[in-house]
């Protein structure tokens, strides 16, 4: 029994190391073959439609609701200490620093990431990638790299839209519904949110999440066993892995960026 368990552990470790190695090689070759994605930018624009535009609805709606909840909950808590005037600050800072990039990243992983994995996996299972290779066209350059760059470009835009919608939601609930003073709401917010420290760092976070989620999604698809079960398993793994990676990266980045402030 114990021997079996140790053997399993060893096998999994070796498999894991092997996959990390393969993933790194995949990532590198994707970067090296990115020329096509920029020379023929039409390919990237096409993928931006699928990763970015099609994720818009879920991002906008979720952003609005998250902002509205923040407005409601924030007001509840703040008014106990008589500082309702800080509602704008609370909503904006939590969105711009954390919730915008992280929640947009998680939604992006489940909406666009899973779609990318399923598409690439299916292309592999139906031998489309092999066919492309036999036609002397590198699938990494033609299929993978444009999707990567589309994801990397889309993600910060989606996160910014999420935050903006959230602030709007917080404004609607806080100012229009509850009646916090409009001037205080905006001016307190502007006083506390710094462009470089807060907004730019949020953008950097979302770019990093975009790179991570898209790479995981592409790799899982490319590495998926070419069967129906293989593709569905890979799709699940994409969502689980990239969600965990987004949260872990968020912790690391936050520790780097906001240490020493407050």
């Amino acid at each position, binding site marked *: 029994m114990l021997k079996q368990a140790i053997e399993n552990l060893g096998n999994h470790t070796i498999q894991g190391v092997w996959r990390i190695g393969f993933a790194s090689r995949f990532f590198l070759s994707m970067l090296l073959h990115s020329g096509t994605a920029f020379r023929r930018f039409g390919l990237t624009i096409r993928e931006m439609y699928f990763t970015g535009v099609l994720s818009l609805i879920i991002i906008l709606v979720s952003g609005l609701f998250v902002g509205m909840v923040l407005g409601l909950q924030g007001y509840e808590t703040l008014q106990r200490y008589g500082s309702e005037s800080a509602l704008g600050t609370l909503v904006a800072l939590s969105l711009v620093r954390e919730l915008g990039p992280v929640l947009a990243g998680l939604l992006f992983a489940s909406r666009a990431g899973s779609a990318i994995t399923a598409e690439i996996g299916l292309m592999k299972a*139906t031998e*489309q990638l*092999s*066919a492309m290779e*036999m*036609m*002397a*066209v*590198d699938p990494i350059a033609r299929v993978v790299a444009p999707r990567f760059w589309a994801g990397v470009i889309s993600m910060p835009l989606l996160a910014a839209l999420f935050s903006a919608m959230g602030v709007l939601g917080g404004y609607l609930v806080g100012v229009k519904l509850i009646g916090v003073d409009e001037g205080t709401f905006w001016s307190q917010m502007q006083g506390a949110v710094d462009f470089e420290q807060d907004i730019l760092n949020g953008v950097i976070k979302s770019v990093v999440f975009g790179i991570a989620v898209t790479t995981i999604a592409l790799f899982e698809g490319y590495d998926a066993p070419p069967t129906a079960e293989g593709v569905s398993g890979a799709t699940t793994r994409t969502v689980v892995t990239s969600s965990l990676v987004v949260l872990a990266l968020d912790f690391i980045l936050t520790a780097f960026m906001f240490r020493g402030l407050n």
Partner: protein
Amino acid sequence: MQNDILVEIEDAVFGYGARPVLKGINLTAKRGQVVAIMGSSGCGKTTLLRLIGGQIKAGQGTVRVAGESLGELDRAGLYRVRRKMGMLFQFGALFTDMSVFDNVAFQLREHTDLPENVIRDLVLMKLHAVGLRGAAHLMPAELSGGMARRVALARAIALEPSLVMYDEPFAGLDPISLGVTGNLIRRLTDTLGLTSLVVTHDVQESLKIVDYVYFVSEGVIVAEGTAAEIRASGLPYVHQFVHGESDGPVPFHYPAPPYVDDLRLGVRSA
């Protein structure tokens, strides 16, 4: 290289991990011929095609296509040789996100700088050759299996290759599509001066159109010859294969201990 041998394989050995799949294959295909590679499922036929396409490299031996040894080529060289090849995958492997027209135009757009109106004419010519000019605007999902394979054939010949490989072109087709596909392979080979390599286990259909046949079993060539020679062959394996007998050199049963022992007859324990 003015000789008329296009594909030449010498003593090719290949294995996935520790499991050998090809154990020393010798094979040649001349220009203008339709050559069939036959054998039962899982005998390494598809592996052989992948070897010729350069998707895998032989462990030992050489694979030469148009005079170039694939094992010694780098990536760029391999891609150069592949432009002279077309491959028809088992289920067509059409790009599902493009229309039939764009599928056929794919290689022309990737590898040439031809103006769009020239590409349009070329694509329609290829589609006409497989009888599907009218289906140019359809998406792959709207095609039947036989049509998808004909589109894939049009795509494979788009750059006028000198070698076209077919992976199980007859699998899962109705009798009409079967005849259409067979005739198409023969006709395209003759009119375009191609060499066709057909991997198949559909004996009757392929014997009608091929010039030369190789039989592969357990990683080696067990028989070869023209269609007529194969039909008349006295080799037990070929005979079993051509006539579709269920038992013979290829046994019906997977190797197992004696039946009686396995059922534990007479040893009945509580």
